[in-house]
């Protein structure tokens, strides 16, 4: 830990007698904030200038000066149990609040523990700023205590990272990291802060966060491309709108809804795009891909004009590239030029902001496509492949039933978070999402353990009257369960529903399907009793085995003002279907294992 003790500004105002402090107090009175005196205060000021209200982190030697500066700031710091938790909490906070989440950690293990969370944010294009302590500049490269080449380690998983060189520029560097993180296609940034630079004196007040010179994300798409795309949509007979996570990030959900309705175009979403379009709307076919609905996968297979907005055509969406939307001309709207034709060739590339380009398209289109028959076809598929499950009241609980019970007991604006695995799929399949930023999950990286810390981050960003419900698996929950201590300490009103099958369920499902049922390392055999574990943490815990306990327990948990955990012991053999096997055609989704 810190060898260099730095005197703490006394919290007791009566002791502020010497001149320097008196001066500082005057400045504070003027600006409402303490003046910048060193690297650390400049860093904190840069965050304040960005409007940061919450930061998630874990203390430690090299980051201590920054923490010390937070003492005088209005920024609320939430001490997490583990740095991975801090990164996921910051990520989820950013998703819900539509601003970069802030994660703090010390050098070495603190920074490396952030890595999973940074990589997760990078895959899902979530805005996040990670601030990491570093050993003093003159010790860098000497294998000093708790030294790791943090900028080197995080280079492939950040939009950009910086090694702070001097106290004079450190505030503006943090401002750049903040601005870059949320601009264009969002993503995580990181600033590595050597301890001596944090301590170094400076009175350089950082300005408002500004993008690094030369960085200017596109807004409007090239008009000629828009015209070509508009013609393609007009002449389509089977147009389909595919809304990705970028629609939500661009705050373009409303525009996308208007676009679909005005032109009568059916809608599918990607998994991160869940919430961009209301799933109870007639035009909506929910989400496509590996565990998407049968009707979404039928539509994406048969469309003749696929309008992808803010999506990167990831392999879990496309299935086999050779059979993905094989008859479709592709209109691809994305703010990141590198996503155009990366996985799926774009016949009509429109590089720009999702909402702006959709407006451009609407402006340009002279008539809606003649898609009445296609809309009817989509409805037919909806009826042909309903999302449904069967219940035997004497058999173990079906997980889908639990998800639906929560959905019924909560409002539309409820935020749903999840870990990764079968439970995540059931939650996204059987919850009817209607609003953006209400589905918070780990999509691209698939990080088990994301759920609980993300729930904590989401809770801080959510409105007070919004419920926050986490669906977790037993395996996922156990990976970051220590964060329950944070939820209790902060008295967060969250509800965790553990869909417990005592398996690494998704692995078990694949072993049954593709490995002759050899359950290697997927069977836990023994799991702690999560209700009691929750109580030991100081949270409220329940265990539910039967159907007739579900509704009342859900009600009680939601009612409880604080963190609550329900351990639902579900049918251990329940599997997630429909399923498109890896690399298979979406249109050949299996409805049961024997169809794989």
């Amino acid at each position, binding site marked *: 830990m810190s060898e260099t003790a730095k005197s703490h500004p006394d919290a007791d105002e009566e002791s502020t007698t010497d001149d320097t402090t008196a001066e500082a107090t005057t400045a504070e009175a003027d600006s409402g904030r303490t003046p910048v005196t060193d690297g650390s205060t400049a860093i904190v000021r840069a965050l304040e200038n960005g409007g940061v209200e919450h930061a998630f982190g874990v203390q430690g030697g090299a980051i201590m000066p920054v923490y010390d500066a937070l003492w005088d700031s209005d920024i609320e710091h939430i001490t997490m149990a583990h740095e991975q938790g801090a990164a996921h909490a910051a990520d989820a906070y950013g998703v819900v609040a539509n601003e970069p989440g802030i994660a703090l950690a010390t050098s070495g293990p603190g920074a490396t523990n952030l890595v999973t969370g940074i990589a997760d944010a990078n895959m899902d294009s979530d805005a996040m700023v990670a601030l990491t302590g570093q050993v003093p500049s003159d010790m860098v490269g000497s294998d000093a205590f708790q030294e790791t080449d943090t900028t080197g380690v995080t280079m492939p998983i950040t939009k950009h990272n910086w090694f702070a060189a001097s106290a004079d520029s450190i505030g503006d560097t943090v401002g750049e990291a903040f601005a870059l993180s949320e601009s264009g296609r969002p993503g995580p940034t990181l600033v590595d802060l050597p301890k001596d630079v944090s301590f170094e004196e400076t009175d350089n007040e950082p300005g408002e966060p500004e993008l690094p010179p030369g960085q200017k994300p596109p807004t409007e798409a090239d008009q000629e491309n828009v015209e070509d795309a508009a013609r393609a949509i007009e002449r389509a007979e089977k147009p389909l709108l595919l809304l990705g996570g970028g629609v939500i990030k661009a705050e373009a959900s409303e525009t996308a809804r208007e676009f679909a309705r005005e032109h009568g175009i059916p809608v599918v979403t990607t998994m991160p795009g869940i919430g961009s379009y209301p799933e109870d709307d007639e035009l909506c076919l929910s989400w496509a891909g590996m565990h998407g609905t049968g009707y979404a996968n039928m539509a994406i297979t048969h469309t003749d004009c696929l309008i992808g907005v803010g999506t990167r055509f990831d392999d879990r969406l496309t299935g086999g590239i050779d059979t993905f939307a094989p008859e479709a001309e592709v209109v691809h709207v994305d703010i990141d030029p590198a996503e155009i*034709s990366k996985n799926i060739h774009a016949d009509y590339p429109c590089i720009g902001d999702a909402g702006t380009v959709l407006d451009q398209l609407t402006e340009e289109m002279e008539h809606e496509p003649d898609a009445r028959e296609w809309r009817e076809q989509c409805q037919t598929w909806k009826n042909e492949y309903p999302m449904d499950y069967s219940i035997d009241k004497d058999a173990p609980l079906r997980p889908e039933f639990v998800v639906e019970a929560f959905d019924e007991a909560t409002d539309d604006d409820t935020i749903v978070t999840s870990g990764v695995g079968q439970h995540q799929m059931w939650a996204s399949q059987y919850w009817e999402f209607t609003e953006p930023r209400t589905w918070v999950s780990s999509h691209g990286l698939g990080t088990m353990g994301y759920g609980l810390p993300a729930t904590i981050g989401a809770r801080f960003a959510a409105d007070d009257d919004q419920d926050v419900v986490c669906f977790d698996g037993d395996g996922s929950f156990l990976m970051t369960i220590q964060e329950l201590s944070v939820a209790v300490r902060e008295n967060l009103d969250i509800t965790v529903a553990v869909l417990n099958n005592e398996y690494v369920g998704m692995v078990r499902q694949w072993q049954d399907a593709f490995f002759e049922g050899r359950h290697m390392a997927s069977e836990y055999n023994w799991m702690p009793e999560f209700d009691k574990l929750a109580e030991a943490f100081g949270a409220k815990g329940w265990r539910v085995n039967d159907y007739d306990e579900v509704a009342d327990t859900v009600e009680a948990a939601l009612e409880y003002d604080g963190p609550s955990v329900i351990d639902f012991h579900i049918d251990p053999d329940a599997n997630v279907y429909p399923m498109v096997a890896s690399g298979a055609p979406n249109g050949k989704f299996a409805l049961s294992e024997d169809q794989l």
Partner: protein
Amino acid sequence: MSENQQGLQGPPPEERPHPDGRRNSQGIRIDPEVEAEPDSRTAMISALVEHEPGVLARIAGLFSRRQFNIESLTVGPTTVEGNARLTLIVEEPEPGIDQAKKQLAKLKPVISVGELENRPIRSELVLLKVNGDEPDKVQAVTEMYDGTTLDAGPETITVQLTGEYDEIEDALDAYRQFGIIEIARTGPTALARGSTPTTPGEKPAAEATAVGVETDGGSDAGGETGDGSAESQAETTN
């Protein structure tokens, strides 16, 4: 809640209609009867970058993690202080080259990216050490290829060669008879021919001090980012 509670229903995969269309591995719709997978080609990419710590690591890391096949990379300062020019040779099928350029342009320290087409001016420097047993013959070969003898001892002779890839390869063939002991090559570096900027961002052609620059439009190898104005970079960064 589910209304019929019968579990998942619907025709099984083999009873559903399936379109005949196909895409190739690049995600391009193809006629499977006609079109083959695209051949890879060699592209010479030039990038103007901020010469800040770690910029080479960022670029090398990008090419490595995205599995772009990179044959050579050279780097050096430019007319603008704090900027460096990188020259890369990439071998990829067409969409891969496009992708490499776009990913490169996304890196924060990268100012502009261009591909050199239409016979760019390219050159490479080679140092090679050969056996010194036949100094006269070595000297003759060196003169033939416009090389320079940098060091001549009783046992070894060290020669410097510059030129395009083919010239260098020819020269090396000629030296092989003496026995090449060691070789060091810079890898080729290049600029666009004529007044067209190699990539936007360096000193504009109008200000260039060089005289007699070709103006016949012998090269249209402009930057990836297009018009050469400061605005052009916006297209490729976000």
